[in-house]
């Protein structure tokens, strides 16, 4: 089943930016986002299993966070902005209801 596969994050961040430039970051992760509102064929509630938090940090400092609830679509997409100041590294983290975390890193060169 698709939901047994390990979620794969995909992030689109420009590699270079000018100081003060506003960049848009687009993220996507494969995940079933089971809402906990559905029932299986036998009438039993399918337990909730979603990614409940997305965090973006730059050089160790959290810059943007999103708490996701059961209404978020499968394979959740999230976009947001960041104002480039200095070169460094983004760390994007997704937290699953089951305790797993998924992480991906992207370098940004400012100059």
């Amino acid at each position, binding site marked *: 089943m698709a939901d047994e596969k390990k979620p794969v994050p995909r992030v689109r961040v420009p590699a270079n930016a000018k100081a003060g430039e506003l960049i848009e970051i687009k993220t996507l992760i494969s995940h079933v986002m089971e809402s906990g*509102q559905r029932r299986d064929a036998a009438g039993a509630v399918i337990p909730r299993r979603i990614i409940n938090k997305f965090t973006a940090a730059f050089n160790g400092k959290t810059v*943007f966070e999103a*708490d996701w609830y059961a*209404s978020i679509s499968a394979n*959740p997409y999230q976009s947001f902005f960041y104002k480039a100041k200095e070169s460094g590294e983004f760390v994007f983290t997704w937290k699953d209801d089951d305790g797993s975390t998924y992480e991906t890193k992207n370098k940004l060169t400012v100059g």
Partner: protein
Amino acid sequence: MSQTANSRRDFLKTGSIAVLASILAPHMVLAEEADVKAALDKLYSGKTMAAGKIKLDLPQIAENGLVVPVGIDVESPMTDADYVKAVHIFADGNPLPNVISYRFTPDCGKASASARMRLAKTQNILAVAEMSNGQLFTAKQEVKVTIGGCGG
């Protein structure tokens, strides 16, 4: 000719099953205005909210309730002294009212974000922005949903 009649009959049959299913679906306890109010009170009980500053970016009609784009954009200089702290989005016709909660920092440069949500039926989307000085701003918009996204 008979084929047309058949497909019409099938269409009617499917239609009435869908109607029946929606009546007979007790597990779909839908959120109502009161739930959104309760969720809001949990965050900002007794505080005044003004319309404006925040804009919702939503389709007027969503053909597929499983994937409805939802964007917000808040007017703010996003400086250390004056920025958008948080934005919460609620849906009053879903089984649970909360959709998403964002926390912004001045590093964002712009208080704008997009995601995709499920909508069970035609309903109102409410967004509340909390500014760094504690002021609250809201926006509300209806989305008409052609096919509900409740997986039922």
